[in-house]
């Protein structure tokens, strides 16, 4: 079973640039894929100006939109 580990940056800079919207997407993904999706939070990924940032399976994604995050995760899971 494929797994995805998502780490959402909830630092102030990322929050300002929309991390709460991403958190909603993450909730939905978790509902859909259950234990295939593991979620964690962090306070900064060191790329504040390019926020919101998310770490997906160890890779930092920048300027993430809800659509972008969803596609990324679905792609990994269905690859």
């Amino acid at each position: 079973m494929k797994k995805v580990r998502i780490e959402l940056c909830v630092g102030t800079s990322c929050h300002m640039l929309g991390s709460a919207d991403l958190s909603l997407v993450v909730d939905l993904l978790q509902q859909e894929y259950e234990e295939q999706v593991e979620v964690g939070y962090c306070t900064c990924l060191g790329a504040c100006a390019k926020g919101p940032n998310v770490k997906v399976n160890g890779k930092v994604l920048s300027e993430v939109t809800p659509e972008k995050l969803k596609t990324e995760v679905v792609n990994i899971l269905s690859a």
Partner: protein
Amino acid sequence: MNHVSEITKIRRRVLIEVARLQWENRLLKDIDDLPEKLVQQHDQRYRCCEYKEKAIYAERIKLAMGLTLKEEYHKKPLSELAKKALEFPVGPDYQVEVIDIACDSCPINKFFVSNACRNCLIHSCQQVCPRGAISIVQNQAYIDQNKCVECGLCKKSCRFGAILEIHRPCEQACGVGAIKSGENRISNIDHNKCVDCGACITSCPFGAISDRAQILKTINMLQTNEKVVALVAPAIVGQFGRKVSLNAIIEALQKMGFSQVVEVALGADLVAVAEGAEFLRRVPHEIEYLTSSCCPAFVKLIEKHHPNIKENMSTYVSPMLAAANLLKEQDPNTKVVFIGPCVAKKGEAMHDEGVDTVITFEELAALLVAKGINVSEFDGAGIETKDASALGQGFASTGGVSMALLNSLPKDKQDELNYIKAEGVHQCNEELNNFEKNLEKANYLEGMACEGGCLGGPGTLSDQRITSRLLKDLCRDNEVKQPLDNPVVQEVLVRHPRYLHRNKD
């Protein structure tokens, strides 16, 4: 619905960058390069060309520096304007402005035939149109916009629902008809009508409407004054995400340079008790009903659109001014920064010495980010907030004012209060009309210009579905329940200082 759109991000990036220059004292030196820097930062293009984007950024920068977009500032180098901005001019009374070059001049043809038109046999639209504006062209109804008077009868008559009514989002959001399309169909705000609620700011999909920020002066005060107090509105809870507590936010504010953080809810406690007494004194002997006066946009709505019932408005100041003046009474050298979700507060504060600057939660976040302070890294351990009662904190949410007022009345008088609440300018306006025409049985009106109350304000960072839950938790955990249980309230109301009254003489 606080979805962070691309437009919101642009506005926030501008605020962060302007704040950064000010913190680092390089505003005059580097401001001219900022539009270029902002355009280069992101590869995405929103407008026809880079030049237009830069021009729009320049306008946003002016507003972020606190300047109005008046004619004489056009085409001036930003560094020259920054010099002006650093003198912290007071500026006009109104807060909300249209960025002309960002306005997309949305179509104003209100009624429009869609492809769902089946060219039916009865042509009811054509029959009902009082102006003969509808003809059939290429198998579809067609509205001659020169003849159309926008009565909407055609839309009502079509059984397929094929005729659409299109609004400009800003016009629709405005509860007082203050926005009309002006020259070249660019939106134009009539400041005689506008109440500064800021609903149009959030509604415009092009981000073409905004308000002036007071961040430069705020930073300057933090850098040069010893005692700067942050007066935080109760709606602040949850603004930095569900995981960041109120105490953590307070700790971050102290780190940023505020010498003290005080909850505006303290002022709410004062107002609730004072207004409760006013209610019993004046209703029904002197007036038939009383209205709240804590929301500045609601106050403006009454003053500008319902002047006949000005007498019915509570004579007390808002919680913000009550708390601010109390702080200045304790120490006249204190500088007070009000931090809230509200645009209209910026105008309200201009007329009172209690408050030195007003910034929104969004602008606060920009100040923090620009200074490299990450609120989510604080835990607020050791911080205690004990300024206000739970009901005072509840002012932030619609219905909260009424609840606090009710509970401030003596038990045997509580059934004399028959309150009703209105939220959003549209609804407030409707209710005020009802009261004016004596159609309303209630004897107290709580008016909040934003839907959901302050939690739904234009300067918020978090969705009110989340923050309203967190506010409830905060109130639940507060041991001091009633405004009357707040010792400061007792002390102040015995003296009943003049500054508690809107009309100070």
